[in-house]
């Protein structure tokens, strides 16, 4: 006898949580099942670097309390992989052979680490940097490791390198691109970061990647494409993630890089929803459909999916790439488009840099409206910029003020300011 659920959710991270919490705020009685490969309760993958660096203990990795599923009356089928979806019968086949029926199904399967082909990947002490499993393994290896190579100079790679550095390892970052964090920041910030990492003793090699992994059973070094050899006793592969789309493929959903969803997080099939790193939606700022593999985006996608699954109607009106990061003492925030200074096209970049104070601000404007920005150093109240971006406010009149460290609503011209704040203030009629 197949057990049927009103809602079945595959995956156990931000998107699933967003969905469950939304569902339960609307539908207190509908049955929910959650299917997840991992056996542990929901934790925050974004906290992995924090755990590794020893900033938090294991308990704090958990995103919700232990009784979360019970309290929200969710059948948590943990340690079970969903292997197939029968959209006709509306059933999901689990790895244990069990079938569960669904009325509405959410795919929140997330991503898998990207691992480029190279020799020697089968050796020990080679880790990816995505799951709880990964970090527990790395933690074990840390005891004997002294030198680590991190492949990938993106957000995850740099965070891993920072964490390893903090753990006393000598870390070495290898990045294929000409500078670190290239997709989200521009040259000055990359330079800031490279200098910062260098200052902390983390070597960064750019324009390079690993050709070969050396060693016996365990890794003891790598050879880069330019022939440079780096000895190490640990290798962390942090090249980014690719959407996990297998289930979507099996279900016959339309897929590009990720499972294509509309603004209601609906896939090409009725009653099938997708969100998070496995899904591909619309980037409001870029104006294209793309995968936005970010925690907030996943959670919000889950909420919207949940609302629609429960019979409501809610749309994801605005989303784009946004990142908040910090490396050592440097805080970074980026959002929207990262338009290179060399070839801005229709865009206008305005920026201020103070290497000494490690302060940088860049705003990318299109017709006077913010299309993207990068803040380094002073990031307080960054959300106001996002709000300006979201509301497509014309900032040309006060563009200079954007660089003000104390930028706030006081800096925004009267009309626009009240437009942005209106709903939350009592605006008395004052005749002057």
């Amino acid at each position: 006898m197949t057990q049927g659920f009103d809602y079945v959710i595959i995956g156990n991270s931000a998107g699933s949580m967003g969905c469950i919490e939304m569902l339960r705020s609307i539908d207190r009685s509908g049955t929910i099942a959650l299917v997840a490969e991992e056996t542990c309760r929901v934790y925050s993958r974004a906290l992995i670097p924090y755990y590794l660096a020893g900033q938090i203990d294991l308990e704090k990795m958990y995103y919700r309390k232990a009784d979360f599923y019970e309290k929200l009356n969710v059948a948590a089928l943990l340690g079970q992989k969903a292997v197939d979806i029968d959209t006709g019968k509306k059933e999901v086949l689990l790895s244990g052979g069990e079938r569960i029926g669904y009325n509405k199904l959410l795919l929140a399967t997330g991503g898998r680490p990207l691992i480029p082909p190279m020799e020697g990947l089968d050796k020990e002490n080679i880790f990816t940097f995505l799951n709880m499993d990964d970090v527990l393994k790395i933690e074990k290896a840390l005891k004997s490791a002294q030198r680590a190579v991190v492949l990938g100079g993106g957000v995850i790679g740099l965070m891993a390198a920072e964490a390893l550095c903090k753990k006393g390892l000598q870390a070495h970052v290898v990045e294929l691109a000409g500078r670190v964090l290239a997709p989200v920041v521009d040259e000055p910030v990359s330079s800031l970061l490279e200098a910062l990492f260098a200052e902390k003793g983390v070597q960064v090699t750019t324009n390079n990647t690993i050709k070969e992994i050396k060693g016996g059973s365990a890794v003891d070094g790598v050879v880069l494409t330019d022939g440079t050899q780096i000895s190490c006793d640990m290798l962390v592969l942090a090249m980014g993630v690719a959407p996990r789309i297998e289930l979507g493929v099996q279900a016959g959903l339309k897929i590009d890089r990720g499972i294509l969803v509309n603004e209601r997080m609906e896939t090409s099939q009725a009653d099938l929803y997708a969100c998070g790193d496995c899904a591909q939606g619309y980037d409001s700022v870029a104006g294209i459909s793309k995968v936005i593999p970010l925690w907030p985006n996943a959670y919000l996608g889950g909420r919207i999916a949940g609302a629609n699954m429960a019979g409501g109607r809610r749309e994801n009106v605005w989303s784009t790439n946004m990142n908040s990061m910090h490396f050592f003492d440097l805080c970074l925030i980026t959002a929207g488009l990262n338009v290179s200074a060399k070839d801005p096209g229709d865009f206008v970049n305005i920026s201020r840099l103070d290497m000494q104070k490690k302060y940088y601000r860049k705003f990318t404007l299109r017709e006077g409206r913010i299309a993207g920005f990068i803040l380094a150093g002073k990031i307080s109240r960054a959300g106001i910029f996002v709000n300006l971006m979201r509301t497509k406010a014309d900032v040309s009149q006060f563009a200079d003020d954007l660089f003000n460290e104390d930028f706030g609503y006081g800096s925004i011209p009267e009309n626009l300011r009240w437009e942005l704040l209106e709903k939350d203030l009592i605006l008395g009629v004052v005749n002057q």
Partner: protein
Amino acid sequence: MYSYLLPEFTIERKTDRCIKCRVCERQCPFGGHKYDPDFDAMSSFEEVCVGCQRCAVFCPTGALCVQPHHSQYKPNYNWTREKFQDLKKQAETGGIILTGSGNDKPYKVYWDHLVLNASQVTNPSIDPLREPMELRTFLGKKNDTLEIELNKEGFEIKNELNPNKMIELPVVFSAMSYGAISYQAFKSLAMAAKEVGTLFNTGEGGLPLEMRGEYGGNAVVQCASGRFGVDSEYLNCASIVEIKIGQGAKPGIGGHLPGEKVSLNVARNRMIPEGTDAISPAPQHDIYSIEDLSMLIYALKEATNYTKPISVKIAAVHHVAAIASGIVRAGADIVAIDGIRGGTGSAPKIIRDNIGIPIELALAAVDKRLRDEGIRNKCSVIAAGGFRCSGDILKAIALGADAVYIGTAALVAMGCTLCQKCYTGKCAWGICTQDPYLSKRLNPEIVSIKLVNLLRSWEREIKEMLGGMGINAIESIRGNRDHLRGVGLEGWELDVLGVKGAGE
């Protein structure tokens, strides 16, 4: 020119209590405090301090004390510090010294020399907590007689009544124009008047359109020498129309609202261009005689279709009684008399301090004169000029006033500390200013409550005093000088006041 003036105030800061929060710096419109990053401490600049006490009240740790400056010239009974400072100021500027608020010179305050009566044994005093105590008052001309007809349904009044405005408490806010005071202050007065069931006076600044519907019924609208803001709707939305001839603080002097206070909205309400000086001439140029006044009174009655009492406000001067009698005979329904202690937003100090007579004497003389002429019931008398408490008010009513105008007392309730710098337009309390940064300091929702509270507390006090006299309606104390006695007054003063000495 290097100034030889001594600072008026000293600012003492208890440094062990100062948390450098800079609230004082932000609250002082004169720049009396500043944070000094080099010392990491607050500095004070005493030479600009006007003693308004805003900083002392707002300092969250009570670190500030502002008091008269200790430095003094060699004490001299004749050449006081004030006279010194005025002389030096004039030597430096060559100008007329301006000031604000009311006369602060030690003229005899007759209220402090009059005492009220109370019942003992022969008639019971009344407990206002248990018995009704009525303060309702009518302002306007009373009919000489009523044609009362007895028909099937009972008695019916057949004749037309003179227009009267009913107020629940014989205390009315006196003329303070929007322009002289901030919109917020102006609106606070209107809100409080409405709440309590009394009146506010627009002064000569018009009544903003958006306020007419809601507050017109509680407005006394002024028609003064500049005729600012007067239009038909203005006159007709109001309860009472008042012709302003004079003001106690500056008898014989016009008004001058400097252009910088004439904001767009002030300009709109006064019907003058923004930023231009609003000059009210000393006389009304169409009133050079009592007949002229009568013509204006009747012009206003025509304009309001004889539905509103017309008031004429004068400053109390030497022949006030005769003038008041003429005004009543000219057709006025209300005579408002403003005594020498009446307030102002701006007046030459020499005028404010030296011209006019005390309201107590003026009121007594006017009431007596009108009674002697048998025309006291043909008008109401409103007394103004320095009423400080409900005792003053009840004494005024016993002397013969129908109601009193309060200005300064209301301002104090609103926050005013009588620093007398109204004319600078930088009122730290947001009252006498058009600077939007300062005027918003006055929140009409809060301040109107304070005004209401003030009136309510006076109402309670008046009821207590009335009850003590065994009187339960204000009309029974009006002009009832038997309940007043003089203390420390000379014979002529008792005569003018029409009261006996205490013990008689």
